[in-house]
Structures are given as C-alpha cells and as structure tokens.
C-alpha cells in the first residue's frame, strides 16, 4: 500500500477505486461473515463459492460484516441482480451458480418468505425487515469487506475527513456536530457536541479520544457489528473528533468477548496507518493521531467511563466519584483530558460532516435527531440488527420489522436498555422511541438492546434475572450496590420460590429508591430499574406470586397447585417416573398428585407429553376459610 502524501492523492485514489471496485458488469457474492452467520455456517458457503470460482466463473466474493437478519443466517446477496438469499448452506452453492450466476434467475427456495405459503421476496430492500430501516451508522455494514480499506474508500469513506481537513477549521467541525444535536448513543443521550467542546476547552496540550466498545449489556450487539463490519467508519469518526478537539492519542476499548471485532479493528488500523490516514502528519496536513486497541477482560462495570479509564491504565476497573469528569484535567486516562463516546456515536459523525447538520436534523424527532440501531431479540420472528429513525413506535419495530411474536402468542412486554433499563408493557406499544419518551416510561434507551417477551415469560423472573446480572457484575466498591442488590435479589428469590411475604413488594420499592440514590456509578443507579418498572407495570404478577403463590407464566418453581387433568391424561406414566418425591400416585385407572408430598419442582409438568399436568392458582386463604365455615 502506498502512503497518501496529501488530500489530492486520496481523491484520486477514490476516483480510481470507484471505477475498479464493485463493477456492475461483474458477478459479486456478498456473504455475511459476522459472528452469528459464521456460527450458522457461512464459512462453508464462502469455501464452496471459492471452489466454484476456481472452476472458471468470473466471480468476486465479498466477505461482509453483519447484514442484520441474524436469525436467517447465513445470509448473502448476489449483485448486480440484487437477490437476497437466506439460510444458505454449502450444498446450495451449486444451485446459485447454475441459476443466478449463469442465467440471472433467483433460486426460489433460498428467498425470504414470511411463511411457507407466502410469495417470496426477491430483493433485500423489499423485505419487511429492511423496508422501514434507515441506515446511517450501519451504512456500510453488509456492503463492503471490513478487511479491505479500499472498499471503504470506494463507497465514499474518508470523504468526511477529507472535507474536514481541507475546508473546515476544528471549530467549524465542532459547530456542525453541536448543531446536528448528535446525542450519545451509549444510553444516556448526552449531546456529543457539548462533550467535545468541554474537552476542547480543558487546559493542557495532550488529549485523548476514547471509543467505548465495552458493550456488556446482554442482548445488545450493535457496537460489535460496527467494529466487525465497518471498522473504518469508527476510525474516521474518531479522527474527525481528534481534529475537532485537537487530540493526538486515541484508544478503542473493546471487550474481550469480541475476538473478531478486535481482529478486524487491528487490521483496519494497520491499513489506515499504511495509507497515511493515521499516525504522523495525516494526509500532509500536519495533524497527528495515534490510535490503539485495548482489550477488556470480562468486567461489565468497565463500560462505565471512569472504570474504563482505570482499566486502560492497568488498574482494577473501579469507577470513581465525579467530578473530575473525564474531559477535565485529572479526570481522563493518566489524568489527561479525554473525550469518551460510544462506538455508534463515532460512526454517525462522518455522514454528519459530509451531509451537514440539517440533513441529520431532518431524520428522527426534534429532540432526538438521527437514527438508532437496535438489537431486536427475544421471542420475535425476525431477530437481528435494525436501524430506524428516532420516533418510530415500538409496534412498528416489533410487528412490522420483527414480524410479530413467535408462534403468534400474545405480546407481554419489551425490555429496553439492558440491565439498567426497564420493561415496557403492551399498553405502551405505540410509544414513539426516543431518548426522552423511554426515560419517561421508566425505561431507557441504553445501548439499544430490545428483548421481546411473550405470555410465557414471567416478569418477576425477568426482574430477578437482570438483578442477578447486576449483582454478580457489581464491582464491590460502594455498599448500596454491593449489599443492596444482594438483599433485593434475596427477596426476589423468596418471591419466585413461593415463600414471598406480605410487604415484600413495598420493601423492594423502598430499596430500589435507596440504591438509585446511594450508588456511585451507573451500574448501581440503574440496577433497580428493571425491578421498579416491572413492579410499576406488572404489579399484579408480583402480587400473585406473593399472595396466591401462583406464577401465571408457569416459569417459577415452587408455585401453584399441581393437578393432573383426568380427561386429558392417557396414562403413559411419565409423570410418575419423573417425580423424585413419589408424589404422583397411581390408582387403577388414573394418576393423581398427592399434595402432601409434592414439592412443586415442575418435573411432572415438563415430563407430560400432552400437557395434562396443570398448574393452578392456589385458592386464597380466606376462600378456604369461608368454605370451612359453610361446612
């Protein structure tokens, strides 16, 4: 790779690349090689295509990053026709070669269908999953090979950097980001422009730009997809930020659980350095910027800014009280003022610089402009990454893009914002999604995880799950978080195992408020959110658990009354075999459960092949009492 001496060189290179790369007269296979598609076998598909390529087909194979529709993986696109194939197997490659590559017709069995009897969709943009999406941060995901910087340049990459370096002063760049009102995509939604300005104004010559790729929220993977599938857009965003605030050094902090992201980022950094887009005297402008990757080591709390800084310095990842903020002297890495943003935030910067702030303001809502990437998961038909304009309703995301609930069961709630977020019930499905409305509903945007739950999900169990996550990830520095979450978890354990006591729900609420107020960092302050929001919207489920010892989703063990429905039972005897406590008794023509022996372990319920074992509500105590009186 030849080093680019000045901005004119980059322009010329792009013009050349535009003609050479992605030529319309050549067949091209764009196979997704994101983590999820690799797990479902996309490497094999690539291998088969490579073999076909050696047999004389004029064929270009592009190994792209995540294309979004992870559940239907491995997915791929054939260009120039534009056919979109899903669930491709190695053995399908010969079909694609003989049908699509030879005569330009689609392989119908591989096209996306909503159900077996529906007409298939031929092209990617016509799929309901993609139709409502607007791609800004994910603009290149699925279009280019992340390990090839030339692809990125050919589709218009580093043009924003070119514009910033050649026609704008650092102050102008800052002004554009401020006017675009780009809010931090990491969760809290703090305006990025303000943050940059604060860091720029801090005294001192040495400054740092840090990207937070410690995406620990369970159920969120948008940052991973950007780092894996389009690392250069992150690098370009960081470069522009470094230019605006006059920083010379930068770090990308990636969690250790994302090995592919680390690998692709390292390759991208090396290529950018070789081309002279990073390092000394970038494009002959005299700007220097040195960027490096730092890996985490499996601590969720390191997503918190002060803990992340401690981890980069080589310490235990403990958060510390603020101020000083990261952007103030003494606050950032090694005490130097630092600007920390989320991966997605940086990836949004280049298009803003290129198209201007008004373009960005025209997408989304007034207070939350732009788009947001969500990781749509849980019990929804089409899971994967979706990027939508702010202000879209939850209903549109879950039912139009996600295709509804698996098995057409009833929708119960959607959990947004990871362990610090909350659950939103069906009554708020028409809530427009933006930073402020989600906070009002008792949840938060968070990094953008969206886990859909149906009627088979127990909300108390979900709250317990999130709390146990925060409890085990608590770093242990401040007592409200360390001790408080543990105490709350014990109460929830009690409730979900049928030993709940009256007053437990109120006790939980009180503890939630205290922990929120008393904790040092975002982890502790956010930990009670799932409990609070589920109590707020699903209080009756909590009450059922505590007062009636019944779990309507039939998830929690030790609750309810077990009974065998004799009209359904066909006497297979599996329940008797499954029971470890000898509670299932046999008579000559039926099985029944002896309540004195039953421990409510659910073994018989799970063993029954025809669901003849029923879990029912325990009759209320006063009802039993009144019956006795009648006798």
């Amino acid at each position, binding site marked *: 790779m030849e080093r680019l001496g000045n901005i004119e060189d980059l322009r010329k290179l792009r013009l050349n690349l535009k003609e050479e790369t992605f030529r319309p007269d050549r067949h091209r296979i764009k196979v997704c090689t994101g983590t999820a598609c690799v797990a479902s*076998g996309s490497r094999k598909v690539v291998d088969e295509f490579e073999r076909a390529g050696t047999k004389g087909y004029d064929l270009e194979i592009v190994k792209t990053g995540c294309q979004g529709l992870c559940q239907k993986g491995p997915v791929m696109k054939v260009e120039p026709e534009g056919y979109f194939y899903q669930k491709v197997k190695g053995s399908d490659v010969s079909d694609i070669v003989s049908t699509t590559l030879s005569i330009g017709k689609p392989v119908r069995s591989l096209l996306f269908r909503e159900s077996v009897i529906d007409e298939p969709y031929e092209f990617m943009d016509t799929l309901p999953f993609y139709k409502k999406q607007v791609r800004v941060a994910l603009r290149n995901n699925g279009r280019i090979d992340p390990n090839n910087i030339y692809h990125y340049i050919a589709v218009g990459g580093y043009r924003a950097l070119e514009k910033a370096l050649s026609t704008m002063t650092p102050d102008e760049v800052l002004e554009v980001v401020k006017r675009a009102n780009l809010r931090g995509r990491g969760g809290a939604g703090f305006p990025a422009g303000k943050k940059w300005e604060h860091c720029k104004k801090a005294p001192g010559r*040495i400054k740092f730009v840090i990207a937070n790729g410690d995406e620990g*929220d369970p159920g969120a993977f948008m940052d991973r997809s950007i780092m894996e599938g389009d690392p250069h857009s992150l690098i370009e965003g960081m470069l522009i930020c470094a230019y605006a605030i006059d920083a010379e050094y930068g770090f990308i902090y990636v969690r250790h659980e994302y*090995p592919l992201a680390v690998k692709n980022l390292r390759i991208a950094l090396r290529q950018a350095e070789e081309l002279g887009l990073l390092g000394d005297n970038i494009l002959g402008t005299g700007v220097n910027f040195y960027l490096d990757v730092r890996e985490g*080591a499996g601590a969720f709390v390191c997503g918190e800014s002060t803990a992340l800084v401690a981890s*980069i310095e080589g*310490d235990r990842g403990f958060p510390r009280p603020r101020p000083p903020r990261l952007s103030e002297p003494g606050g950032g890495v090694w005490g130097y003022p630092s600007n920390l943003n989320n991966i997605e935030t940086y990836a949004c910067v280049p298009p803003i610089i290129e198209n201007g702030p008004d373009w960005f303001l025209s997408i989304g809502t007034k207070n939350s402009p732009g788009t947001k990437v969500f990781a749509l998961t849980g*019990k929804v038909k089409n899971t994967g990454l979706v990027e939508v304009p702010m202000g879209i309703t939850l209903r549109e995301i879950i039912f139009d893009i996600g295709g509804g609930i698996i098995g057409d069961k009833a929708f119960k709630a959607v959990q947004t914002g990871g362990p610090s977020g909350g659950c939103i019930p069906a009554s708020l499905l028409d809530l427009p999604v933006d930073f402020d409305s989600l906070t009002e509903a008792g949840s938060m945007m968070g990094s953008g995880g969206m886990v859909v739950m149906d009627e088979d999900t127990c909300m108390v169990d979900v709250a317990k799950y999130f709390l146990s996550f925060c409890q085990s990830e608590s770093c242990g520095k401040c007592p409200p978080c360390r001790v408080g979450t543990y105490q709350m978890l014990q109460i929830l354990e009690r409730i979900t195992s049928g030993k709940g006591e009256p007053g437990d729900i109120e006790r939980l609420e009180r503890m939630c408020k205290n922990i929120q107020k008393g904790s040092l960092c975002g982890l502790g302050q956010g930990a009670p959110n799932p409990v609070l929001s589920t109590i707020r919207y699903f209080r009756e489920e909590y009450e059922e658990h505590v007062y009636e010892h019944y779990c309507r989703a039939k998830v929690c063990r030790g609750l309810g009354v077990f009974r065998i429905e004799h009209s359904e039972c066909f006497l297979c005897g599996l329940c008797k075999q499954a029971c470890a406590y000898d509670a299932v008794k046999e008579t000559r023509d039926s099985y029944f459960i002896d309540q004195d022996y039953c421990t409510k372990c659910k073994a018989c319920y799970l063993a029954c092949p025809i669901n003849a074992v029923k879990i029912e509500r325990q009759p209320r105590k006063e009802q039993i009492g009144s019956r006795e009186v009648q006798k």
Partner: protein
Amino acid sequence: MKIEDLDVDEQIGRVSRVLSEHDRKKGILIPTLHRVQEEHGYLPEDILRSLSKRLDLPLAEIYSVASFYKQFHFIPRGKKVVRVCTGTACHVRGAQKVLDRLQEEFQIKEGETTPDLSLTLETVGCVGCCGLAPVAVVNEEVIGEIGPRKLRELIREIKTGVTVKSEDILE
C-alpha cells in the same frame, strides 16, 4: 513469550512519550496478562512472579488486577472450554436447560473443570449472538440455536475429543 524480553515501550505504543515509566509498565499489565493466558491457558504463579519483577509491580497488585477481571484464571483449564451464554435473549429461550444438562452430564458446576481436564464449564453474560439464542461458545467457536440434538452432539464431542464443526451438525 519470555517475560524477561518484554519490551515495555513497544507494547504500549506511541502513547509512551507522554507517560511516566511507572504508568507505562502498569499500562501494559492487562495486555500482557492476556498474552500469558493465551499461551498457557491460565496464569501460572511463576510467570506472574517474574512479571512482577520485570514491571516493578508488587505481586499483590498484579493479583489484585488479575482477580478483578473474570477472564483471568489461576488454575489450569480444560481442553474444551464451554461457555454457555446466559444473556437475556438466551435466558428467555432456555439457556438454563442447556446449562443444567451439561452440569448433570459431567457432574460439575459452572466455573468448574472436570478432573480429567476435558471440560471447563462456564457461563458468559452475552456473546452478542442473540439472534441465534440459545448460544454456547466452545473454545472460540460459537454454536447457535442449541436444541436437544446439538447438545447431544456437543456432549459426545467433549467425551470423545473429536471435533465436530457446528456447520456439520447443521447439515
């Protein structure tokens, strides 16, 4: 990798210019621990001792850092490291059943290693493959949509030591 030959300036990168010697040495601690673990599978005590000498950091401090992060281990680990994802999406789609089955089959609890070092069973917060839930990571390879059949294959694979690629299980 020899600890004695560790080049601090090269490891920390360009940022070394603005850092004191102590900061530099401390700054490469976590990346170096990663490298040691990659080589040995865990952090052996003698290597940590020589690292402490090389970086002029008290051994206690190195242990304090290493024990904070979940990814570092002080005891040898199994040939196969199975990490069952218990993230939200996997939890909702039945990760607990996968974990229970593995625990039962090998008679170990999560976080433990079998006595013959064939398997280390762990759980992980989220591997970001929620689209394929429930998911487990076997060494570095992700296996998605684990049902009873895939689980059986996986158990057989661990017991016999023959690698079965997830792609082959699929087809």
